[in-house]
């Protein structure tokens, strides 16, 4: 299990990744190909391929085969767990930050 810090590093590694996570969280019913997902955030398949793979590895997104098509969707349960872990990490960070001020 990745730590809160590690999760945040993956989620916010770049703008594309943040856009992907934001889109899937706002639209949890989205099920599309990588190409379709890329189009919906105004990018190309090549530009998002690696970021989608990283988010699948983290567990936020889910990849599966439908016939001969690979489709991407959000893993609602796993994403909830991840949000909880990040929330706890940020909560623990708060007293430390306050102590430093």
């Amino acid at each position, binding site marked *: 299990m990745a730590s809160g810090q590690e999760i945040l590093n993956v989620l916010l590694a770049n703008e594309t990744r943040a856009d992907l996570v934001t889109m899937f969280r706002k*639209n*949890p*019913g989205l*099920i*599309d190909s990588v190409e379709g997902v890329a189009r919906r955030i105004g990018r190309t398949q090549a530009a998002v391929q690696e970021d989608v793979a990283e988010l699948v590895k983290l567990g936020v997104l889910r990849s599966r*085969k*439908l*016939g001969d*098509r690979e*489709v991407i969707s959000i893993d609602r349960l796993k994403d909830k767990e991840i949000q909880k872990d990040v929330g706890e990490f940020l909560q623990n960070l708060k007293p430390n930050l306050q102590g430093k001020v």
Partner: protein
Amino acid sequence: MPRIKSGIPELDEMLYGGFMPTDAVMVAGSAGTGKTTMALQYLVNGITQSGENGLYLSFEQMPDQIYRDAASFGWDLKKLEEEGKFRIVLTSPDILLAGGGENLLDELIKEIGAKRIAVDSLSHFAMFIDEDKLRLEAYRLICFLKAKGLSSMYLWEAPQLMGNSFSITEVGLSFLVDSILLLRTIEIDSALRKGLVIVKMRGSDHDKRLREYEITSNGVKVAAPFSGYEGIMSGSARRVTSLSEEDLYRKGLIKKNERKK
């Protein structure tokens, strides 16, 4: 036989109680006639009034926009999703059809135990499929949902329904569905009003009159049939003038002995 109520009381009256179970219903109309609103209302009412969970399958609109639009009618779709009673799915027709088209829907239907589904839209579905295969693929989708015991509503964007044309779909899809509701914009006294008519309903009698409806803050509200107008289905209605017997007599349209004493 129990009916599938739309939850819109006046529409259920027109349907003599509601749609037939597992029927495929087409809601056809041009942009702005309230097809999406009616479909969402059908699903939300199914959950809240009949305990029938629902699935909204969109090929066009992003779910966040649908949540927002539904909220303006007081329907909290996110809450219904959290309760496991409702799902919005956005995908493309080619993905739906991949692997026989059944894998994706099958999983979602089981996930929430869906009993109703709205497909938004069949016209978008048609854009992705060759015309010679369209009827077959649409028929396969309709049969699959019937086999799963779902009552389904298919939206059809029909821009040609303004004016004199009365063709619902040009590709013969209207033969595949059991019922057709036609939503229509009508010009009356220089204002645009909305009219609804049941064009077809297999296995049941129904109200054949064109009734006015409005999209209110609570969703679709069906009102009384249009009366006192002619040429309504042409899209441009004219008021029927009622002449008194005296006027009719003066114009020579009735004889003296036909006048009431």
